[in-house]
């Protein structure tokens, strides 16, 4: 077993390199075959739709996320919403926020945009940085590899929360917050993905088809692009599918700690932070964002699991090439969990 496999995070060695071509068609077919993943996809889709159409929905409701409604809260009692179900009514579908009387539905809808958007952005950045560094380490010579691999170790060793606290303070406040949060998560938490890509690259580049490409006369860059990157797609997609929900939680944790997005922008984590003391007085204030966060993370995780199973080469059943290939009644095995680190998330 190579050093690469030793130091690589879990799940890396689970990625089989001689993956059969799971073309897009096969992928969808296999994804569709999983009922749980389908349900999760539906739920996730609804949430995304909810986020995308938030402005429309809010318009439909007729409220907005920033207007204060002091008349809707009981000032003498700390500002609990007046009326049952948190002051839910025709004009405030899910009631209003305690203290401010801002419309809860509108804030949840906008929060969906921020939470999912930030998580998505963070995931994209993580993938971009992680793949670049991993690829460079995997392809470079011993020194380049050592350099990037140590760098990855450093990044993995840095607690996200701390870096976020410091970096959010350093960056000018005019910088758009959601983007900044995405950047920070993306730039601090790419270590694992880089490790995966590195290990996968090292494994892939020993494959015969890479040797064949080299014999064809291609240069390293071309080989990386044409032969390796597609091979990395499956593990990277798998891992990022599992990373996405983790990022949703990280964003909420950062906002909870007060270093995430800022008022009056709503995000679920920030709403949770504000609401955690209201669990008894105005439960819906806590339960709604918590529920949405829970649902989103659950759906995305299940979906990520589904993606992983659908992309798992070993789930393709036996690959038969002559008698030397796999034997016996081996059932398709799921790949080991590529467990994304929740650094600082929790």
């Amino acid at each position, binding site marked *: 077993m190579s050093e690469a496999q030793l*130091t690589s995070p879990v*799940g890396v060695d689970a990625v089989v390199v001689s993956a059969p071509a799971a073309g897009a068609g096969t992928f969808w077919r296999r994804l569709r075959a999983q009922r749980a993943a389908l349900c999760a996809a539906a739920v996730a889709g609804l949430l995304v739709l909810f986020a995308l159409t938030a402005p429309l929905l809010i318009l439909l409701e007729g409220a907005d996320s920033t207007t204060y409604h002091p008349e809707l809260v009981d000032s003498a009692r700390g500002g609990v919403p007046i009326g049952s179900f948190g002051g839910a009514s025709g004009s405030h579908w899910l009631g209003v926020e305690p203290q401010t009387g801002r419309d809860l539905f509108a804030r949840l809808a906008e929060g969906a945009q921020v939470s999912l958007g930030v998580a998505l952005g963070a995931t994209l950045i993580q993938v971009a940085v992680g793949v670049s560094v991993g690829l460079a380490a995997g392809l470079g010579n011993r020194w380049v590899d050592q350099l990037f691999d140590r760098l990855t170790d*450093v990044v993995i060793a840095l*607690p996200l929360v701390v870096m976020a606290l410091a*970096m959010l303070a350093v960056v000018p406040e005019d910088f758009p917050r959601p983007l900044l949060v995405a950047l920070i998560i993306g730039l601090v938490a790419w270590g694992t993905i880089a490790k995966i890509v590195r290990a996968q690259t090292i494994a892939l580049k020993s494959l015969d088809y890479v040797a064949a490409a080299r014999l064809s006369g291609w240069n390293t860059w071309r080989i990386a692009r044409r032969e390796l990157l597609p091979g990395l797609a499956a593990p990277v997609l798998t891992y990022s599918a599992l990373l996405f*929900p983790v990022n949703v939680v990280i964003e909420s944790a950062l906002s909870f700690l007060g270093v995430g997005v800022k008022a009056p922008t709503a995000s679920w984590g920030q709403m949770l932070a504000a609401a955690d003391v209201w669990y008894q007085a105005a439960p819906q204030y806590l339960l709604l964002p918590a529920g949405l966060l829970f649902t989103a993370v659950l759906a995305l995780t299940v979906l990520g699991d589904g993606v992983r199973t659908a992309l798992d080469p070993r789930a393709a059943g036996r690959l038969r090439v002559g008698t030397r290939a796999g034997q016996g009644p081996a059932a398709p095995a799921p790949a080991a969990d590529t467990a994304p680190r929740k*650094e600082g998330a*929790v």
Partner: protein
Amino acid sequence: MTSFVLRRLGGLVLTLFVISVLVYAVFYLAPGNVAQLSCGPRCSPEQVRQVAAQLHLDDPLYVRYWHFLTGLFAGQDYSTGTAVLHCDAPCLGLSYQSDREVTQLLLEKLPASVSLAAGAVVLWLIIGVGTGVLSAWRRGGLTERVLTTLTLAGTAVPVFVLGLVLMVLVCGQWELLPFPQYVPFGEDPEQWAWNLLLPWVTLALAESATFARMTRSSMLETLAEDHIRTFRAYGVPERAIVGRHALRGALAPLIALNANHIGALVGGSVLTESLFGIPGIGRELVHAVQVVDLPIVVGVMLAVGFAVVFANAVADLLYAVADRRVVLS
């Protein structure tokens, strides 16, 4: 073996060096007038200048960093006003805010953090590996589906919500436990455990989900391996196959996962420690960051970096012990 240790040591030193430089650079840029924060809001400019001089804040960055390095290797002297004391190497300097030796401060906070982490790790291994094994064994059945859903739910609830709800229910509503307050182990081991129970559970629940999923898929993978087929073909009961052979095979990746979770643990501890008022390193860190107490931040980051790198090295060693086929290179 020796070369493994040497290489790891080299990596460790390098990692720590990079971390310290990084932290210095980032915090150098961070806003906040450290001298003013240390002196108090109503200090006069002259006083602030004096404090800054005393903390070496007016030196250029590289001088401060050099000062830090020499302190680390040779220790440094500092004055309490009435006396001059020596901070022995490895000296991480003095806290800007409380004038205390960072090394000593960290050592003071360490037991609480370690108590929290150790218990949580044990608990999440028990919960996580237990449910993972069970759901792999009963794959396809109702047990598995219930367990899978539960563990997924675990990942989806942020620690801060989980901890608060647990505390409100267990201590407030049902009065099953007193509200946790940290009791040092040396003082009263029993109370130590009782008071840490809830923090452990909180931290462990969130993490055990990952471990359960990991164990399960790792088990399923091992169960699909050829040597399992051999034992099936020889009539070895399923219980022995799962309990002996599959579990053993699933163990190695778990070790690696654990090591990688040290970093995550720090993050989790920050929230858990502040929620339950455990006087640990995580909370110290957040506070230090807020008041730009650089020596403490550097100290904690180095400690964490050390823990992560060290844990990874130990994991590799364990891995090699668990799986003799692995050669340490």
